[in-house]
């Protein structure tokens, strides 16, 4: 049994599952539009939250938030469930699947059989969508936005990833599905304006004494990395830097920590709202994205040296200070434009 589900790869898993699911119900909304409507862009650097012993840096809003924001905005009725018993979590999922609805699951990356070894981290916030079951093998057919084609997973592995332990937070078989769709989508223009305003607020509303979140966080990180080498030695400093680069580029950000995705959203937003100025803002965030890539490139040259290319922590720190200033100004001015 397999639903007629059009699998399209996406940059990010959560946007991707939502976008694919909505398309299943006949609503075509692009990944950047979902990201923008959900005010998904963010920055945080939290020395008090550790992953593998290193401070967590993030370029987007917290996991799960996108889905609840977007369903509320567009008027979809979503059902979310968590479980204590593994068998029940599978039985319920099958029931919904066989009633003809794709089921989204929040899973751990670690035991996903199709992940390459190097991507098997104990990260419990990946999203996949169950869209069928093979009769012969009993394996489930999966639409994973990070995979180019549909994949399969055995029941045993699915239980393992849905009940992934420890790490940042343990999973309780969390799954979600769309229970009711609206007859038609609401008028997007006012929602887009509201979503942009909200994202501007998320990025700029923090008082200066709260340095971890929003545009404030970028120079905060910039100042911190200056001390890394003297505080923890070259090796540990390099590992910390690599961690920042991985968060910026690796886990489905669409490049430059979601900045390009937001640029794509602003272009679509300009078309729908008729606010031409948003095209200019799209260009500006693209340039900021290019600076993030420059930061990533030069950082990589610090921990993996190449002949003729020498960069210091001072130089990459200076890039972050500049980006912080530009993003703060960008979101202050964007707020005025909508």
């Amino acid at each position, binding site marked *: 049994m397999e639903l007629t589900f059009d699998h399209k790869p996406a940059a990010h898993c959560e946007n991707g599952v939502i976008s694919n699911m909505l398309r299943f119900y006949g609503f075509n909304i692009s990944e950047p539009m979902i990201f923008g409507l959900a005010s998904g862009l963010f920055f945080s650097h939290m020395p008090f939250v550790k992953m593998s012993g290193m401070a967590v840096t993030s370029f987007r809003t917290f996991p799960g938030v996108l889905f609840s924001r977007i369903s509320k905005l567009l008027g979809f009725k979503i059902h979310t469930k968590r479980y204590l018993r593994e068998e029940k979590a599978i039985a319920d999922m099958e029931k919904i699947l066989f009633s003809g609805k794709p089921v989204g699951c929040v899973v751990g990356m670690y035991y996903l059989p199709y992940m390459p070894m190097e991507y098997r981290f104990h990260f419990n916030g990946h999203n996949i969508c169950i869209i069928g079951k093979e009769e012969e093998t009993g394996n489930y057919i999966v639409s994973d936005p990070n995979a180019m084609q549909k994949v399969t997973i055995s029941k045993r592995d699915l239980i393992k990833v849905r009940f992934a332990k420890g790490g940042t937070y343990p999973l309780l078989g969390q799954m979600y599905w769309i229970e009711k769709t609206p007859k038609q989508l609401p008028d997007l223009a006012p929602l887009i304006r509201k979503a942009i305003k909200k994202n501007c607020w998320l990025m700029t509303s923090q008082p200066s004494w709260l340095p971890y979140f929003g545009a404030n966080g970028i120079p905060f990180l910039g100042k911190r990395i200056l001390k890394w080498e003297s505080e923890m030695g070259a090796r540990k400093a390099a590992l910390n830097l*690599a961690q920042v680069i991985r968060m910026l580029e690796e886990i489905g950000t669409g490049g430059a920590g979601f900045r390009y995705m937001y640029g794509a959203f602003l272009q679509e937003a300009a078309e729908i709202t008729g606010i031409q100025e948003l095209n200019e803002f799209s260009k500006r965030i693209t340039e900021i994205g290019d600076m993030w890539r420059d930061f990533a490139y030069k950082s990589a040259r610090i921990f993996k040296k190449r002949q003729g290319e020498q960069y210091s922590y001072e130089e990459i720190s200076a890039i972050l200070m500049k980006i912080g200033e530009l993003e703060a100004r960008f979101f202050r001015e964007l707020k005025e434009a909508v």
Partner: protein
Amino acid sequence: MKVDEVPQDLKYFENTVLRDVAYAVDENGKYTSVISDGWSVKNDALELTMDGIYEECEEIRQRVLAGETSLLEYYAAKNIMDVDLLSDYTGISKRTIRKHFDPKVFSQLDRETLEKYADALRITVEQLTTIPE
């Protein structure tokens, strides 16, 4: 980033179904999504992280050879699991796991316990009890 600047540096995605999706602007300044094989910069970052793990594993392997610790500690490190996480996955208490890091205690373990560990560490019992080259 322009469409023709989207990096195509295939390394860790090789022979997998995974790819990146990047957003980039085309010649008319319009954003579009482009499939990417990866970027050398993040491959470097990933390599450094993996090297860190391999170095730690090698150091533990040497201690296994010297009879100072058990293969359980080696495979836990290889799976980036600390005692807390290994305990969560196996249901074996942290204290007991630490005892099993003692090679003498480890060599006496029954099949059932070994299977529990092997299952959590995604290896066979044979691998769990054989020192890798």
